[in-house]
């Protein structure tokens, strides 16, 4: 089996978000870029599966749609343990463009398990995995918090309100993963970092696409009014405010 992990290159989760040019462009000055947290967990689980089922999983590929500036993030994925990488040379502007480029990669090569994160922490589209499944007419399962291989079948756990479902599925399929898929993301070791330098990173030119959406500008959320402090010896006053002023209890 071949596994493909789709990775998004995103600003570090602590980044202060600022925009330039009349709030039309994200200010990337001084930003640290990381592998989207869910994609990093997906990659970790893919590596665990390869280790646990050495015969069954032959290769792990990571793919990113992005400009050459995303290569440090891709190299990090190789250092964590992916065998090879593909970069589609395009500055993506929405989830559909990304899904379309990914579908072209998958049509050219046969992957059995394709993993996406539930959401890219920059644009919060929560869309690429689903769009990709429909473009390829592959089955998809979303909110996946566990995955394992059982013979030629896969066993998944899907998070539902108040619990989980255990799901059986055959390959090829697209798993859209979330918290739980791996406990902690793997950290690359020295050997991994050295090896990553020589692992193959193929650059593919994009296909052209019509966009359905256009991100025209950004705003900052409304600033909160300042916090009203209540004396710790007067907890009753807090209850009074919540009841009479905020009207929430």
């Amino acid at each position, binding site marked *: 089996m071949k596994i493909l992990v789709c990775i998004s290159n995103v600003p570090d989760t602590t980044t202060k978000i600022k925009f330039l040019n009349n709030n039309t462009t994200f200010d990337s000055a001084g930003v640290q870029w990381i592998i989207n947290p869910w994609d990093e967990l997906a990659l970790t689980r893919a590596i665990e599966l390869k280790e646990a089922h050495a015969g069954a999983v032959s290769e792990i590929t990571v793919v990113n749609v992005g400009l050459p500036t995303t290569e440090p993030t891709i190299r990090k994925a190789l250092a964590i343990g992916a065998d090879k990488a593909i970069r589609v040379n395009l500055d993506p502007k929405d989830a559909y463009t990304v899904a379309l480029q990914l579908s072209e990669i998958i049509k050219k090569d046969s992957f059995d398990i394709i993993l996406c994160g539930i959401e890219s922490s920059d644009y919060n589209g929560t869309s690429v995995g689903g769009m990709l499944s429909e*473009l390829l007419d592959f089955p*998809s399962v979303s909110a996946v918090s566990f995955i394992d291989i059982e013979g030629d079948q896969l066993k998944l756990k899907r998070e539902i*309100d108040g619990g989980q479902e255990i799901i*059986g599925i055959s390959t090829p399929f697209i798993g859209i993963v979330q918290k739980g898929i791996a406990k902690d993301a793997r950290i690359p070791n020295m050997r991994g970092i050295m090896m990553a330098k020589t692992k193959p990173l193929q650059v593919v030119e994009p296909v052209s696409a019509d966009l359905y959406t256009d991100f025209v500008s950004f705003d900052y959320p409304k600033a909160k009014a300042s916090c009203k402090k209540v004396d710790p010896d007067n*907890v009753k006053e807090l209850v009074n405010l919540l009841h009479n002023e905020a009207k929430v209890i």
Partner: protein
Amino acid sequence: MSILVFAENWDGKFKKQTFELISYAHALSKSMNTTVSAISIGKVDDEELNKLGTYGASKVLNVTDCRLYTLDNKTFTMAIAQAAAKENSKIIVFAQNNTGKAIAPRVSIRLKAGLASGVIGLPTSYEPFTIVKKTYTSKALANVIVKSDVKIITLSQNAYGIVENPTTANIEHFSPEIADTDIKTTVIEVNKITGKILLNDAEIVVSGGRGMKGPENWGGIEELAQILGAATACSRPVSDEGWRTHEEHTGQTGKIIAPNLYFAFGISGAIQHLGGISSSKCIVAVNKDPDAPIFEAADYGIVGDALKVIPELIAAIKELKAN
């Protein structure tokens, strides 16, 4: 023309989320001079289906195909796309929840429709169709133009609210064309807790962080939640350390919630935590550090020891409820 809403049910019942979508779609339909149709998939009785009329649905397509009793992304997509074609729907509305995230993107490809996800309100313009969505894990908002003829929206929870628009809903049986071979997933087992208020549904959430010191101190949080009819939550380190179950983890990498009232006891207010709770209507923070960042996100705060404040809060709320 129409607006189509995917009216999701949970064990045959709709939730506030579903009614919020209908209310929202009704407002859209007024501006666009059209009507709201809903599609329900699964086993839901007529009395329940009629409730969709209360919020403004004039038609309900009722899909009772027993092969669709559990969620299968592809076949749900087929059913909704066929309903959209039948109703000539120009906008299809989903909730930005697990099911919406699973199906809306697939429907968007099938119908060649632009998708705006995590939308927080009505369009700011209809020509061009412009709408505001959350980005950067609620640290920013984006103005997105959807250019396609058919448009798909997933609405953030509690972004619009519930509005009654009494309408008579015509319930119509609908049988989408689905072949057995289209169904590729098998649900082998379902494990659910029942009788507990779920985090995503709760109007009030009582949450604790590392400042609570240890799992033995959660009695107060549970009691407070119980008297308020609230759900309990926690920060990530608390679930990582096994003090609480993973279902309670809120934040960027856990659950993203928007209750009316969120209590944060002994939570520092890290940016990743705030990403999951900042849309709450009212935030109350109790922290012994006056400089804790949680106070910047909070509406009300007490600088003090949570372990001391909680019992006093319980007593004061009991007194309020008694009067």
